[in-house]
Structure formats: C-alpha cells, structure tokens
C-alpha cells in the first residue's frame, strides 16, 4: 500500500523530463533574446541609449556687424525670443492655458495646433518652433507660469536689425531664413534649418565673413527633458563636450553715411532713380543710392504674401539695384566716347566747324534731329551744347566698330568688378552684332544712334561713374570698392582693401585735357547744357544726358503711370574739382525729363554738401 503510494506520489513520472526540457527551452529563449539585444545589436542600442540623454546643442555665432566708413552702424543684432514646444509633454490643457494666457489670435492657434499638437511619432520628442519673435512681456508671462506649461520653452536667438532703416539698403542688403534649397546648394556652409543667410547686398556678398562659426555644447537630459549636466554627469559626455562659437567678421564699408544721407535727401523729390558718388583717385564708393529703397527690417522679418507681392510687382521696381544691376541708355553722357575716339585717331581738328541746322541730312531719313539749330559747331562746342548733328557727323567718321572698341577700352560692356547684387555688364553693339541680329543687317543709322547713347547701347550708373572718374584722373580705371576693411570679433584686421587699378588707359594727355575742358564748359560756359542750373564756384565738370525711353504701352496700366513711364530719363555724369578732381557723381533720375531740370540740380546739392563737409 505504502509502496504503491510512493511510486505514484508525484504522478509526474515520465513527464518530469519533458517539463525539464520545456523549462530549459523557455529560459534559453530568454538568453537567446539577450544575445540578440546585447551582443548582436549591442552597439546600436548603446548608441540609441546615448542619443536618449545626450543632446548636442548648437551655439549660434553672432553675425558680423556692418558699419559705414566712419563707424555708423548699418546692420547689427538684437535678441529675439521665440517659443518652442515639445509635443510629447505639451497637452490640450497646457495649450488652452497658453492660448488664454497670451490671448493668442486664431492664426497662431491654428499654427500651433497644426504643427505641434498633431505631430506624430519621433517628432513628438523634439521641440518645435511655435511662436517667433514674441514681445518681451510674453517672455515674463510665460516664465512665471512655466509649471503649468509642460513642454514649453523660450529660446533666445539673435535677430538681424538695421538701425538706419532704409539708408543704403541696396548696399547693406538684408537676411532671410535659409530654405531647403539653400541648405542643399551651399553644403560647405553647413546651414541648418532656421539659420539666417544674407539674401541681398553686402549681407549676401560677404556671407562667408559675416556668418561666423557655430559652436556646440553637449548636455545631459533626463526623460522629462530636464538638464542634468552636473560635474558627475561629465563622464557621459563626449570629448570635447563644448566648443564656443566664433563671431562673424565685422565689415566696414567705404560708404560715408553723411554723404549717403545727403544724397538720399537730395533725391527726395523723385520717386525712382539711382546715383553713385565715388572717389576718383581710388575707386572707393562714398554713396550708393537706388530708389525706391526697401526696408531691410521688413524684408528680414515675416513678410506677408500680399506685402511681398506689392513690393515685387511695383512699377518702381524697388528690389532692383539701379546702380549696378539696372542698365539704361546713357543718352548724351555717352558722347565722350565718339569724341575721344575721334581725337585719339586724329579724325577731327579742334578748329573744324560744321553747321547744325537742327537735323542731320542722312539718306531719305531726316529723323536724326538736334534739340535745336546750334549753328556752327566745333568738337568743343558740340560737347558743351550737346549737339547731336555734330556727333552724327563725327560717328560716321569714327565708325561703329572703332567707337565700340573705345567704349570697351574705357570699361563699358563689361562688369566693373564690384560684384554686388548681380552686377550687369550692359551692352556696346558692334557691326557684327547688328549683322547677326537684324535681318536687314548693319546700317549707318545704328552708328548714329550709338553715338548719342541710344539704339542698343546700355550702361549702368556705376560704369558711367567709373568712366568719368578715369577721365578725371587721366587714365586710371579703378575697380570700384564698397568694402573698406574686414575685422574679426576682437578687432584684428582680416583684410584691408587697397585701391585696385583695373587698367591704365593711355590716351594722349591732350585728349584728357581737351575732354576735361569740354566737360567744364558744359557746366561753366553760358552755352553749356548744365549752365543754368549749376553752381559755378565749385569747379564741376560733367555731361548731361536726356535719354529716350523705349517703353511699351500696357492696357492694364493707370494712365498716370503710363505717362510717367514714357518720360525721358535724366542723366548727369560729372566730377569735381576739374583742376584737381576728388569725386565723381553720376545721377540718373528715371523718367525725370530734361537732364538740366532734374538731374543737374540734384547733383549740385550733393557737391555743395561734399565741399561744405570737406572744407570744414
């Protein structure tokens, strides 16, 4: 009885071995999983666990400051606060609280809802930009209510600020947030989302200098996003765990802000145009105006679509740099080219006179006219009173290609090398060009038109200024410069720009002297086209130009705008003093009408200011 009970006591019998096997297999499965997690994928999980609590935070570098020649700040940085939200910790309750706390408008509420509350997956673990550049009061309100706003963070970021507003905005330019394209295109710059990048002017041209180098710091964060970087946590940080950012280089422009302001003031009666003032003895630009200007603070901020449309579709074209990017018919300011060519090639004598009856007898066509009948003209008086008929005659003698050659020699038809805002080369036509371009081929009429800066001749304001400067300094074609000096954050000079002579132009001295004297006559002789509206004590030499505009009528246009668009451009290209030249001034008043009425008085005001400033 007892032995029977013993044998059956556990009832387990042969199942015992199966049970052992089952137990061992189950435990081996656990060990197998351990092998998979800890040995096969151990490195990956080690990295993932590091990514969990180690966060590399980028330290932004301050963007370099842009100043004028005398140190007036044109672009600097200010602190802006933005609200970032980590969706993982941010709930509906916190959202409602934030909404009522700041009395958010519907657009902001929708934006936050769209971007943050609806974020999915891993995105929930990263902080996302919710409100950009918030007012200071909001910062205080949010900080004093942090405990009720889980997942909400305020991050301060430097933002570009232009204290002088529109002053020289085409030179200074503006910045904008990088887009995906920028990040792809400029890989070497290592842009990240939300970085700023120069989009116009010096901000764009000198991006590499201004930007600086980012730093970083590794931080230890716990699962709740709280920073735990203590001394004892340092052992988990990679080495080096910190690198300070390097500020961008500061840029000092050649611009004299007083001259710039004077120039902008003198232009106040005209809506649209351009002007440049430069030192004829080194090519450095003192003032640079393209009108209308844009507001760089507005352009760097959050531009609404409707406002952007308004700016970009304006007939006044504020985003075009009319000094170097816009090209125009130079009109009579171009007459120096056939004159120089004829003098150099000995095709005209000083005492050779021609009669101007008010029109040029040329084939059947009598459309080649003068402003009025000038009577007997020699080359000097033809420049002084801008006689078209004389220059029609002269250009026939010089010929299209010779005229073109001299134009190129003096610097037309190629960029000046300022390399700002996509500078344009303009255009100087040749016989061959006409032969290829037009079915009827080259005609003498093309030469006549070119001689007076019409037809197909296109120059920029800056080119014209460089050519007049080279006449003034008798042969030095400078490369125009807008940057004086680049220094690093500590003030150490990185680059100090010396004047660059692009080309020495060896015309005969008599040619230079003759041209300077003729240009003096334009302003100072009673028969000169600029005489009546000029100041005669400042020793100014220059040439007026009234360029016809080739415009197409548009049906959808306001007739008032149409009328304005069909008016001539008014030019005045000049330098002073003519006996010891210092500066060149070129003014273009778009659709300003007669040069002597619009452009000349404007230039006079500039000279007046310049000499007042420099005689004191």
């Amino acid at each position, binding site marked *: 009885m007892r032995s029977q009970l013993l044998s059956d006591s556990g009832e387990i019998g042969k199942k015992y071995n199966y049970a052992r096997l089952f137990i061992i297999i189950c*435990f081996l499965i656990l*060990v197998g999983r*351990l092998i998979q997690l800890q040995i096969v994928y*151990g490195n990956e999980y*080690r990295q993932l666990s590091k990514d969990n609590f180690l966060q590399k935070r980028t330290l932004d570098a301050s963007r370099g400051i842009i100043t004028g020649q005398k140190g007036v700040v044109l672009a600097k940085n200010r602190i802006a606060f933005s609200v970032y939200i980590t969706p993982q910790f941010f709930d509906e309750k916190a959202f409602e609280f934030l909404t009522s706390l700041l009395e958010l408008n519907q657009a902001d509420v929708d934006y936050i809802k769209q971007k943050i509350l609806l974020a999915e997956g891993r995105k929930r673990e990263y902080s996302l930009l919710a409100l950009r550049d918030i007012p200071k009061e909001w910062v205080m309100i949010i900080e004093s209510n942090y405990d009720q706003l889980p997942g909400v963070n305020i991050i301060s970021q430097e933002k570009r600020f232009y204290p002088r507003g529109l002053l020289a905005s085409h030179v200074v330019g503006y910045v904008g947030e990088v887009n995906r394209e920028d990040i792809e295109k400029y890989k070497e710059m290592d842009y990240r989302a939300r970085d700023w990048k120069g989009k116009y002017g010096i901000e764009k041209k000198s991006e590499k200098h201004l930007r600086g180098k980012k730093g970083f710091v590794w931080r230890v964060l716990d699962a709740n996003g709280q920073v735990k970087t203590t001394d004892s946590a340092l052992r988990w940080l990679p080495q080096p765990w910190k690198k300070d950012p390097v500020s961008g280089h500061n840029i000092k422009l050649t611009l004299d802000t007083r001259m710039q302001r004077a120039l902008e003031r003198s232009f106040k009666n005209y809506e649209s145009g351009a002007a440049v003032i430069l030192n004829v003895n080194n090519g450095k630009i003192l003032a640079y105006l393209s009108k209308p200007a844009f507001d760089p603070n507005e352009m760097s901020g959050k531009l609404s679509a409707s406002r952007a449309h308004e700016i970009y579709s304006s007939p006044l074209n504020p985003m075009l740099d009319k000094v170097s990017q816009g090209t125009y018919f130079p009109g009579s300011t171009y007459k120096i080219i056939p004159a120089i060519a004829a003098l150099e090639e000995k095709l005209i004598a000083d005492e050779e006179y021609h009669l101007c009856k008010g029109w040029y007898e040329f084939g059947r066509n009598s459309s080649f006219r003068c402003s009025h009948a000038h009577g007997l003209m020699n080359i000097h008086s033809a420049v002084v009173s801008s006689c078209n008929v004389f220059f029609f005659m002269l250009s026939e003698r010089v010929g299209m290609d010779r005229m073109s050659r001299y134009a190129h020699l003096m610097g037309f038809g190629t960029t000046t090398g300022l390399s700002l805002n996509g500078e344009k080369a303009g255009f100087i036509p040749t016989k061959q060009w006409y032969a290829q371009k037009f079915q009827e081929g080259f005609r003498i009429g093309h030469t006549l038109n070119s001689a007076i800066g019409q037809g197909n001749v296109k120059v920029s304001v800056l080119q014209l200024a460089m050519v007049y400067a080279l006449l003034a300094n008798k042969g030095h074609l400078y490369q125009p410069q807008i940057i004086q000096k680049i220094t690093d954050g500590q003030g150490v000079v990185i680059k100090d720009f010396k004047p660059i002579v692009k080309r020495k132009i060896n015309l005969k001295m008599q040619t230079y002297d003759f041209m300077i004297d003729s240009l003096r006559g334009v302003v100072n002789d009673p028969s000169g086209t600029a005489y009546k509206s000029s100041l005669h004590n400042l020793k100014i030499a220059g040439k007026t130009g009234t360029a016809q505009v080739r415009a197409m009528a548009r049906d959808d246009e306001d007739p008032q705008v149409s009328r304005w668009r069909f008016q001539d451009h008014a030019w005045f290209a000049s330098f002073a003093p003519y006996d010891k030249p210092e500066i060149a001034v070129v003014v273009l008043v778009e659709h300003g009408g007669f040069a002597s009425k619009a452009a000349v008085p404007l230039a006079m005001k500039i000279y007046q200011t310049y000499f007042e400033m420099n005689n004191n």
Partner: protein
Amino acid sequence: MSQNYGKFYLRIDWTLLLLLISITGLGLLNLYSASANVKSPMFTQQIYWIFIGFSSFLITATIDYRIYKKYAYLIYVLGIISLILVLIVGMAKHGSKRWLIIGPMILQPSELMKIAVIFALARQVDAAPPKTDAGRTLKELIWPVVIISVPFLLIMIQPDLGTGLLILLIFFSIFFLLRLRLRSIITLASSLIILMPLIWTFVLKGYQKDRILTFLDPSIDPIGEGWHYRQSIFAIGSGKFFGKGFLSGTQSKFHFLPAQWSDFPFSVWAEEWGFLGSTVLIGLYMWLVLMCISIAKNSRDRFASVISIGVGALFFWHVIINIGMVMGLLPIVGVTLPLFSHGGSSMLTFMIAAGLIMSISSRKHSFE
C-alpha cells in the same frame, strides 16, 4: 482523527537557501542603483520587506508541510474573503482596486491568493487520486476548476490581468504534469482556444487590448506604450556584454525606464551588468525552478508534489513573463520579478512560496 505524521530526518537544503539569498541580494543591490537618484524611502522599505519576508520564509520552512494540508481549505477561504474585502474597502490606484491597507502596510491579497490556490489544489488532488491509470477525466477536474474560478473571477473584477493569468497558468501547469486523459488534455486545450476571443471581448479592458495590439504591432502605439517598450529594450541592449557598470545605467539614472522598481528591474540589471550579469540571474532562476520540479518528483506524497509544482510554476511564469515582457517578447503585463522587484506583497508571497519548498525539501528523507 489523529493523523500519524511519521518522522523525518530534517536536512536543510543549503543550495535552495543560497539561491534565495543570492537572488534577493542581487535584487537589493539592483534596487539600490535603480533608486539612487530618487528621493524615496524605497530602498529602506525593501530592507524591511526582506526582513519580514525572510522571517515568513523561516517560519513556513520550519513547519512540517503536512500541517498545511490540514489548513489548506481554511487558508483558501481566508484568501477569498480578503479578495472580497478588497473589492469592498480596497484602495484603488491607476483605475484598479487591488490593495488593502492594514496598519502601516499596504498588501495586495491577490498576490498571496496564488499560494492559497496552490494549497487548495494540492489538497483536492491529494484527496482525489485519478480513478484509473489512464488519468483524470474531465469530470474529475470539476472541483479543481471551481477552486481556481472563484479567485480568478474576483481578481479579474479588480481588474488585475497579470495575477488572473498567473492563476490560470498555475492550474494548467499542475494538471499537465499530473496524469490527465488525452481526451481531457484535448478538451482543455480547445476550450482555452475558444475562451481566448471571449476573454478578449468580455474581460479585457481597452488599455489591456491596446497593450497587446501595441505588442503585436508597435507602430500602432495608441497610448504611447511603445515608448516604454523601446526604452526598456534600449536599456537591455545598451548593456552589451559587460554592462555599463554598477550605478552607471543611463537609462535608469535619467528615468527613461517606466516603473523601473517593480516591473522593470531586469532592464536596470541588464543595462548595468550586461549579458554576463543577465545570464547569471536567469541561470539562478532556472536553477530554482528546476529544483522545484525535482523536489516535486522526489516528494513523498501527492500534496507535497502538487505544492512543489505550483510553487515552481509560480516562479517560472513570473520570471518568463516579466523578463519576456521587458525584452519585448511579450506584451506589457504587471507581473513582478520574484524576489527582485520592489514591493512587499510580492516579496512576502515568494518568500512564503520558497518556505514551502524548503519545508518539503528538508523533509524528503524519512527514518523508515
């Protein structure tokens, strides 16, 4: 009716004792690290619980197991009463009523109920050996099924899916090891399969279904449970072969592990001690479980045998489910790691269970 208890040559099972002390010690060490930068009296609490637990172990081990047979049903009934009490005056936390407050202690009667169920099943089986050599028929299983059904239902009302599941697993473990008719096995197995969709529809709460769904397809992750999973797996995997070292687990130090003290202590352990430490711990548990069924096989009567299988199953399923869960092999269920997890009821339950085994193991050599 006086029962003749016979005389045993009492021999302490030192291996078993050493195993218990090792696991408990490692658990305490692990808790020290897991709670190192948390302002909570958890560690001291656990020392008290280990003290109480170990005392219970000694008392349970000292008493001759045959005395338990006498009081088996009484213990069972007391357990049922405590479960009913929980439903009436219990403390609710996280949406389920599981705890009783007795003086300074918070007890979870459902934990201790597992032992009461083992007692009752052992008593029933001991009194009713199979009628034929072919094994038990379904009819002979009616009483055991009744014994587990009452506490199972009471526990599922709380609800406590983990404990309910454990009671079912203990029941099946015992009866698959005992003699059952093939037909009974087939019927039980198929009824289990039929039962599963019913449990899914009528028993499981929304969050429990979500957990299972998340487990099957982590990309669904309707309540963010997947995050817990991932963090636990990161912790274990990042331990690599040698571990990050004691007190150096970043996943636990920086709170990436959820409820790391009660449900995820193994993740903390595996992170700091690596594959080496983890296999040692798993090895210790396997040894303990194998010892239990070896004791079951060699025990002198059916009551002792069933108790041993029950205790073995209790340890086995707890370990497999807990570790399987934290390693992402099983859905997340609140099942503790025996002698390792922080918590009084669990510690007490496993210490008493171990005491029972000790009591049986120390009395397998009679004088006769």
